């Protein structure tokens, strides 16, 4: 039996144990079987594997039951505190994605025009050779920087980035670039973090006064304000469902600020139906109110906890600049900035509502001010709001306090180590620029960071269509003046055509041709499990193993260091391959073609098995500073970096490097994970930023200023970008449009786009386009998982409803020739499946003489239109329309039944302005648009 691997043990464990007992209980005869015989038996037995979901980026810990090699059911893994056994509808529908007839089954090469969906089945060898030949040729003619490696909408990107960096392109990106960069901006700028979430993940493992570790289930929060954040329907953070209602029952007050009465609002104590695009205005008012009404002597108005000053720099500058705005007059409403009158005019809320909110937030502790993805993350000026949000949480003493606001990026476990191959970005490369050979780092060829978007630390996927059409001219850094086209786009598990800014612009860019008839973008490779819209535009399509067929590490946002493994659960379906295998074969093929950069020792010569790769990736985990209170390991030195398994750190099986300030226990491995229900949990603590701790700023303090001189040293996160600008004397167009010549040294303010209520430039559209169009995520109806038909029977928030008309259609599958319509016809009855609909207030519907289900045309000032059905309701602010993101206008087989409703449901992004890229990080302003409504 010793030859059976750990995984076999996992699957036999339960069976064998059960068998022993059942047998002994009933006196059945025993017969020993050999190890080989047992293995054979096991192949046909059910087994359970602990793994990580990928139906959405929440990547919950799951336990999958397998019967005769078929995944039978997916359950939440109770030992992963992030989801604690829970599973949402989408997670439960995973089997339908894994066994979907619209999965990509074989490698395919395009035979029709891009967009037609006509392909021929080829072997993996042919597909890889096709890609490798093209990449080699492009690299020779234009340089590796002409290739983009977009690892798309799920987070296990490591192997693809390693391949991209290994090949020599700095353009390795992922979904984050089009997710919510303005929302992350404040936390990154000021903490070095990313996502601020309330302290409601329970349980958390906490060191007790007696030295033991105990799971703490108690909620400390007294107030949560969710601004444009809807965890119950647009879930990204699993624990905020049970955590929010749990905290509420424990006495917390919940306030939801959102133009729509979301399901989260339905559970809140108060709903504030704010006008879209004015979250920054509300936050600015709150900060002014708190500064003006704070009193050190009156306990009811002791809003500010001055201890924040010990852990921060630059508050004086920030406050002074903020106060300078108070005297200015707003050209839109003639009022002074940030006063309650001004905020009432902007937000459309009542004075008493916003003043109560500011007082409530200032006087309630602990509290958490949370801002969301669909609002601040998708607004042109979302940066302003996220910076103010950080400031509000910090000065009120709520940052990383028990029951307060946690920057989850700072405290989650680090994983991956060098897996992404990031170190290769500093390789030296030479380019001839204007006739002169220049040497620099590979990274300095980056199309965003050294050209129009220096501060876009998550890249600018929304700007790719322009790059495909116009190419790149570097304007910053050593390669200033270097021009190159974008010739290859490698898209893996993303669906940029639907999610990466304006759909029509993406289509235009992907199908644009040179004068000779060749496509401008010479190569598009699409790698995924379902076959989504972007795949229709690809030259080569590769089937990636589904999340139950591959290994990697979940990348999520718990409140402390918790890591879990994605493991092999079932055999790979059809001809799919894992990301690791794709990396290895493509790297080898490039190497065989004489690629000068790809090295055997980084790829095929280095790893004998996939498990080795992921074990290496785990070696640096959890990799965070040992910080906070109560200190996770009282016997280990504070503020040293912790590496190693929870059990080795617990008992002190460690080596301590005092020079490097690292405590090293036994490394976390795939094997260790499997032996521990697939999850590693290190203890939680709070105030982890005190004396530096987990902060990732240059000063190891919270920074309220972003470019200043400290003696001879230039400090602050914007300093390096401003240095580039000074050297080049070129101001990037995004910030130039704001009238800036540099990134601001501290607090800044600018207005949103396509908002006549806050920006004078758009006042002229007010009458002709009377509706603000926003969108909301429907968790179970998103672009990649729409094909799961169980989810079509559900509805959500007047965004996704069974209003589809009767349709007789030919079902579509993905076969050897791409998209194949079957001869068979089936009828989808009226009202049988949910489709994305247009949420409209009843009052507006009455004015237009509309009824629920009526088909209307939305038209924006750019002349773009979309047809969809209205859902009239009381749950949205009048004058605002809301549609589901990715829940309509779909036309690929991976959209499942919804693809038959392309013309009667709205693709929100068809109406997005492709030029409305937020000025600092280039996030598409998905929620900034105006439309009018006409009956279709």
């Amino acid at each position, binding site marked *: 039996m010793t030859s059976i691997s750990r995984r076999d*043990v996992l699957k036999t464990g339960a069976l064998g144990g059960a068998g022993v*007992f059942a047998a002994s209980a009933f006196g059945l005869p025993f017969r020993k079987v050999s190890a080989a015989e047992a293995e054979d038996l096991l192949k*046909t037995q059910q087994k359970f594997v602990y793994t990580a979901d990928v139906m959405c980026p929440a990547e919950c810990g799951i336990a999958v039951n397998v019967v005769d090699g078929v995944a039978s*059911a997916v*359950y939440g893994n109770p030992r992963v505190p992030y989801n604690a056994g829970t599973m949402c509808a989408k997670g439960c529908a995973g089997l339908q994605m894994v066994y979907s007839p619209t999965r990509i089954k074989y490698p395919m090469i395009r035979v029709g025009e891009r967009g037609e969906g006509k392909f021929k089945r080829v072997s993996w060898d042919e597909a890889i050779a096709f890609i490798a030949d093209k990449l080699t040729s492009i690299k020779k003619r234009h340089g590796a920087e002409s290739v983009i490696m977009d690892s798309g909408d799920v987070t296990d990107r490591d192997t693809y980035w390693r391949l991209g960096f290994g090949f020599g392109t700095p353009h390795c990106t992922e979904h984050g670039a089009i997710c919510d960069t303005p929302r992350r901006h404040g936390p990154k700028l000021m903490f070095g973090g990313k996502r601020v979430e309330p302290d409601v993940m329970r349980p958390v493992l906490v060191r007790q006064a007696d030295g033991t570790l105990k799971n703490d289930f108690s909620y400390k929060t007294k107030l949560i304000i969710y601004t444009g954040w809807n965890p119950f329907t647009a879930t990204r953070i699993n624990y905020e469902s*049970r955590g929010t209602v749990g905290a509420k029952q424990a006495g917390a007050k919940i306030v939801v600020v959102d133009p729509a009465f979301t399901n989260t609002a339905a559970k809140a104590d108060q709903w504030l139906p704010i006008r879209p695009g004015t979250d920054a205005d509300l936050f600015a008012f709150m900060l002014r109110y708190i500064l003006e009404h704070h009193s050190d002597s009156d306990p009811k108005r002791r809003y500010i906890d001055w201890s924040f000053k010990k852990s921060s720099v630059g508050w004086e500058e920030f406050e002074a600049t903020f106060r300078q705005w108070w005297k200015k007059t707003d050209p839109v409403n003639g009022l002074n900035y940030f006063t309650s009158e001004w905020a009432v005019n902007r937000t459309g809320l009542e004075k008493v509502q916003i003043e109560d909110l500011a007082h409530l937030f200032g006087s309630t502790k602990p509290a958490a001010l949370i801002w969301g993805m669909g609002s601040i993350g998708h607004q042109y000026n979302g940066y302003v709001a996220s910076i103010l949000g950080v400031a509000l949480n910090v000065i009120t003493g709520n940052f990383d306090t028990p029951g307060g606001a946690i920057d989850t990026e700072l405290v989650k476990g680090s994983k991956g180590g060098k897996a992404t191959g990031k170190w290769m970005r500093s390789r030296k490369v030479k380019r001839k620029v204007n006739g002169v050979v220049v040497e620099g780092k590979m990274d300095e060829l980056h199309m965003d960071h050294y050209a129009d978007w220096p501060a876009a630390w998550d890249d600018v996927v929304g700007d790719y269509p322009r790059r495909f059409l116009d190419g790149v001219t570097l304007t910053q850094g050593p390669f200033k003046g270097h021009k190159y086209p974008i010739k290859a786009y490698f898209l893996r598990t993303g669906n940029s055509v639907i999610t990466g800014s304006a759909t029509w612009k993406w289509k235009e860019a992907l199908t644009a041709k040179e004068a000779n008839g060749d496509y401008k973008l010479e190569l598009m490779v699409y790698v995924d499990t379902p076959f989504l819209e972007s795949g229709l535009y690809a030259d080569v399509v590769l089937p990636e193993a589904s999340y139950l067929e591959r290994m990697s590490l979940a990348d999520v946002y718990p409140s402390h260091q918790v890591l879990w493994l994605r493991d092999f659960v079932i055999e790979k379906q059809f001809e799919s391959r894992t990301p690791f295998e794709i990396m290895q074969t493509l790297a080898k093929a490039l190497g065989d073609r004489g690629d000068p950069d790809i090295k055997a020792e980084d790829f095929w010569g280095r790893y004998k098995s996939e498990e080795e790769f992921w074990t290496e990736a785990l070696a640096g985990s959890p990799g965070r500073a040992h910080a906070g209170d109560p200190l996770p390991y009282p016997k280990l030195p504070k503020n040293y970096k912790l590496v190693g398994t929870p059990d080795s750190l617990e008992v002190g099986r460690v080596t301590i490097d005092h020079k490097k300030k690292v405590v090293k226990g036994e490394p976390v491995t795939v094997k260790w994970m499997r032996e521990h229900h697939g999850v590693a949990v290190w203890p939680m603590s709070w105030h982890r930023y005190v004396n530096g701790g987990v902060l990732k700023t240059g000063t190891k303090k919270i920074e309220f200023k972003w470019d200043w001189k400290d003696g001879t040293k230039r400090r602050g996160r914007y300093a390096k970008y401003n240095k580039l600008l000074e050297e080049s004397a070129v101001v990037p167009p995004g910030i130039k449009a704001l009238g800036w010549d540099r990134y601001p040294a501290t607090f800044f303010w600018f207005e949103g786009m396509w908002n006549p209520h806050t920006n004078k430039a758009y006042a002229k559209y007010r009458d002709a386009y009377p509706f603000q169009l926003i969108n909301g995520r429907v968790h179970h109806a998103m672009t990649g998982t729409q094909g799961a038909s169980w989810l079509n029977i559900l509805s959500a928030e007047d965004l996704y409803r069974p209003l589809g008309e009767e349709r007789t259609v030919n079902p579509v599958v993905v076969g050897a020739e791409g998209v194949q319509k079957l001869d068979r016809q089936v009828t989808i009855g009226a009202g049988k499946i949910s489709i994305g609909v247009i949420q409209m207030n009843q009052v507006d519907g009455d004015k237009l003489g509309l009824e629920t289900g009526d088909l209307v045309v939305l038209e924006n000032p750019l002349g773009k239109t979309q047809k969809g059905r209205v859902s009239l309701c009381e749950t949205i602010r009048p004058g605002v329309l809301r549609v589901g993101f990715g829940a309509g206008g779909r036309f690929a087989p991976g959209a499942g039944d919804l693809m038959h409703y392309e013309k009667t449901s709205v693709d929100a992004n068809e109406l997005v302005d492709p030029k409305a890229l937020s000025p600092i990080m280039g996030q598409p302003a998905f929620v900034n648009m105006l439309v009018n409504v006409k009956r279709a």
Partner: protein
Amino acid sequence: MRENQETEIAQDSAVIDRNEDRRRFLAKFASATFAGLVAPAVTGEARALEVAQAVRVPDVPLYSGLDEEDVLGRMDRDLRRALQKPVDQRNWTMVIDLEKCVGCQGCTIACIQENKLPPGIVYRPVREEVKGTYPNVAKRFTPQPCMQCDDPPCARACKAKAIEKRPDGIVKIDYEKCEALKTCIPACPYQAIGFDAGGFWGDYVSGEPEAYEKLDSLEYGQARSRAAKGAPIDKARKCQFCLHRISSGLLPACVLSCMGRATFFGDQFDPDSLVAQLIRQPNVMRLKEEAGTNPLVYYLEGRMQS
């Protein structure tokens, strides 16, 4: 540990369908124990493997060792305690806290997955009500499984006498006896019963059942193949509190998956159980009390927010 398990199994025999063959009987026992196993060990016992294969109870030993304060751990212990009693001394009860239900409908799909439900049948819909006018609006979600009535109108309406109230409270549809008369369906005041018309999710695109639909359904602890066109096709179907799971020491699928941790389960005859405590709360209610059905599904009333 092992002795406890023996007790648990021996007394669980009451839930076993009398028609089951010995192999399945053993198999169920096997599953009851592996739910509680702490230290899995490899063994080379062929018979045991065969037995376990026949069971196909889709679960894992998930809960053992969870904290006392963990509501899952608490319910897990309640369940085990109940399984050690004779079947007629348990009263399986579900409590749904409407204040905590976040309306995600995860339970609806967890249930479809668990019971291998075909298109057209939903055991646990989440009903949604919206009241008021903008901006004074309120919304309530009500998950609505079979109420497992003490006096089930469906059983009275069934001419084939296929619906029985089990001694542990669960209302069972006996697929062997169901004659597809459908008289039970309109009789249910909660619209909890559906009719299995024989469709598959794979019919529409693939033209045949998908891989996961070919696996056995395990309702009532009986492994049945819908793909082989047998029962429960052409039978009335409804929620049975995942009897196959609870008799194996596992919580119903909707209870485990609940995103709001709003659904609780256990034996209300056990005064120390969580559900017994919850149904003593003042804000407890049941649906359609006036119908006199005396349901085993209780709700903690959520405040309608406005």
